[in-house]
């Protein structure tokens, strides 16, 4: 018997091998491993892990079914709360949510809830287990804007309650950030994302791609002309931020969004696709979040030497520990306490390097993190051909500027009630990054869930 204080280890691709391909890093558990890991769960009555889950999955419930090998039953329990378990099992920050609260974690390692969720979801995908569908539709039409995690969750929940749901997607593929943002090696597109979306389709949800709400039509027109009685906005984050330093418009400076979109959505890494990517040979990624890690690990796989340049220290890196760990294993170099001041450009307009300064941590700022301050006389240059800016996004104004009565806050995020997604416009609900600014997949799903409930209550009382 293995050490009960430790997680059953999960098999991963060798770092040296995976740094050269786009196959998934983590292989996940097999049946035996999953059942063994499940047996570590002590099945708390008042389970803390459930409180840590933004969509309140009955975690001890599904794990007890994994323990006994009843995987289909386990899937049904998860399916009551989550429309995208195969996605969440892969990309949720479990260490700060469910697993962070696990009693087992007080002495030893917590139960590997994320890997168990992934196992159950993959089992369901492989064995084509269908989610439970509503018996009949209730005749009420709801529009969902955006097919990312918030929109898919909201649409799935509403369909289960019997609503006729249509999801409008601006891009040519469904999935939002799951498709354009998160790379293949972390979240396989055909094997996982497309199949999870198929399950939402099986619930009766209709999808229309290539519709940019605010341009191709508006929320008011969806309500007035197309007979939708309620609308959920899950349009995601938005415009990439740049630093505003000299040289930033040079060829070879990309937003992480552009770099990742070319590679993930447009599949530039695959020669048979037409969209090009200037992958770079010496790449610096500016920023320390999950998106920065994704961009860095993508550039690495495209053959570049990659540096993460981040102005605070390792402790403050906003990325998940697992992502930082994976990036280091694969050979990404971390230049911490370093801040760019200028991008150096050659005579043809291409990046040739970057001027940086060293930083040190001073007093805590408003966010409670110690404020980085410049070390006098520490200026130095890095030789580079590519710089990827991963500094977050600011909200896209397409919807807020074309919808009468929809209020935004001073950061231009849509104002919505956290508990039910209600906005300042009647019948219109919102959630996910469009409301909170860039956050995580699971928080967006939680907001999609709350929005579905809010819409259900609104239409039931109308």
């Amino acid at each position: 018997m293995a050490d009960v204080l430790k997680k059953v280890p999960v098999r991963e691709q060798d770092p040296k091998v995976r740094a050269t391909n786009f196959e998934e890093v983590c292989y996940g558990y097999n049946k035996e491993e999953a059942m063994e890991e499940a047996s570590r769960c002590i099945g708390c009555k008042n389970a803390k892990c459930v409180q840590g889950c933004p969509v309140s999955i009955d975690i001890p419930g599904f794990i007890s079914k994994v323990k006994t090998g009843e995987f289909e039953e386990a899937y049904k329990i998860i399916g009551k709360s989550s429309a995208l378990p195969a996605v969440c099992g892969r990309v949720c920050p479990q260490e700060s949510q469910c697993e962070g609260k696990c009693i087992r974690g007080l002495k030893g390692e917590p139960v590997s809830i994320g890997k168990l969720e992934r196992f159950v979801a993959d089992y369901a995908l492989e064995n084509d287990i269908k989610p439970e569908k509503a018996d009949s539709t209730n005749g009420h039409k709801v529009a969902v804007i955006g097919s990312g995690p918030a929109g898919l969750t909201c649409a799935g929940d509403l369909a289960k309650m019997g609503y006729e749901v249509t999801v409008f997607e601006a891009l040519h593929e469904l999935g939002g950030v799951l498709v354009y943002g998160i790379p293949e090696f972390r979240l396989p597109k055909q094997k996982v994302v497309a199949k999870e979306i198929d399950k939402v389709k099986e619930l009766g949800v209709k999808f229309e791609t290539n519709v940019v709400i605010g341009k191709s039509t508006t929320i008011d027109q969806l309500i007035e002309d197309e007979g939708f009685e309620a609308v959920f906005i899950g349009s995601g984050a938005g415009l990439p931020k740049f630093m505003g330093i000299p040289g930033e418009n040079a060829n070879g400076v990309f937003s992480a969004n552009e770099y990742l979109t070319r590679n993930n959505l447009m599949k530039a890494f695959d020669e048979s696709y037409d969209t090009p990517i200037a992958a770079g040979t010496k790449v610096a990624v500016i920023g320390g979040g999950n998106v920065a890690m994704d961009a860095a690990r993508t550039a690495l796989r495209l053959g570049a030497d990659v540096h993460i340049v981040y102005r605070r220290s390792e402790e403050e890196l906003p990325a998940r520990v697992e992502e930082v760990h994976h990036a280091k294993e694969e050979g990404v170099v971390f230049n911490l306490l370093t801040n760019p001041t200028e991008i150096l450009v050659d005579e043809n307009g291409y990046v040739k390097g970057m001027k940086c300064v060293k930083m040190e941590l001073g007093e805590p700022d408003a966010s409670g993190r110690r404020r980085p301050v410049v070390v006098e006389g520490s200026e130095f240059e890095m030789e580079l051909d590519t710089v990827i800016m991963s500094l977050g996004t600011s909200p896209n104004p397409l919807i807020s500027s074309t919808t009468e009565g929809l209020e935004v806050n001073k950061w231009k995020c849509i104002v919505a009630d956290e508990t039910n997604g209600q906005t300042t416009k009647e019948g219109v609900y919102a959630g996910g990054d469009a409301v909170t600014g860039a956050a995580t997949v699971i928080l967006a799903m939680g907001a999609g869930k709350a929005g579905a409930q809010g819409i259900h209550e609104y239409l039931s009382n109308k």
Partner: protein
Amino acid sequence: MYQIKKAEVLANNIYLMDVEAPRVAKHCEPGQFVIVKIDEKGERVPLTICDYDREAGTVTIVLQTIGASTEKMAHLKEGDYFRDFVGPLGCASEFVNEDIEELKKKNILFVAGGVGAAPVYPQVKWLHNHGVKADVIVGSKTKDLLILEEEMKAVAGNYYPCTDDGSYGHAGMVTSKIEQLVNEEGKKYDLCVAIGPMIMMKFACLTTKKLEIPTIVSMNPIMVDGTGMCGACRLQVGNEVKFACVDGPEFDGHLVDFDQAMKRQQMYKTKEGRALLKVQEGDTHHGGCGHCGGDE
């Protein structure tokens, strides 16, 4: 899937198509554009809206073959489909929201270069339909490359064709025609709208700045999503960085940094050129021609 209702060759390497896209046709205005993707593996290609028929639900696009994706599109026929067709994107031309009576008092000059005639046409047509007459200069390298002449004549106040080689109309660049109209014929313009290749817009703007005519240009930088997400299309406009897809595509031409924009447009030129040769030459393409850098 979006069906091609009509496909025509306008000139060498310039094609016109009517595409069924009811949502776009219903909402598009002059100044906006669409993004078109031919098949699963194709690029997202931003294209000009040349005309639209709200009742028939069709949008007219004009494309010039410049890369692998546009070369493939050029082979599509009536009845074929685009996999994706999204829009309208970008903002409508400013005058669409102006007071018509005020607009009628203005003298407006349009300057189109090459396929720039396509996005100029719906603007001139819109003004014509609202009782505003605008003068139009259309320039091309040679007579055979001049497009949409009859259509433009039907809606323009005065129509001035120019050819670089003097094979038709005014002999010389559009800039010399602008100067001639203002300096020799004494025309006064309150607004100029110049659309065409970046180099042509740059020089048109230098000319109109000298003549003190406020000038709008329509920028066509590299784009990926076209909805504000990627920032590939960013431009320096005065002191600000703007995204052509959501802030534009039309900007104050006297503030645009054209030199930077032209450099940015070169980003994938060699790659595009290579991909184009591959499509044209198929299996016979070995690289090493000295132009494309080979297929290493």
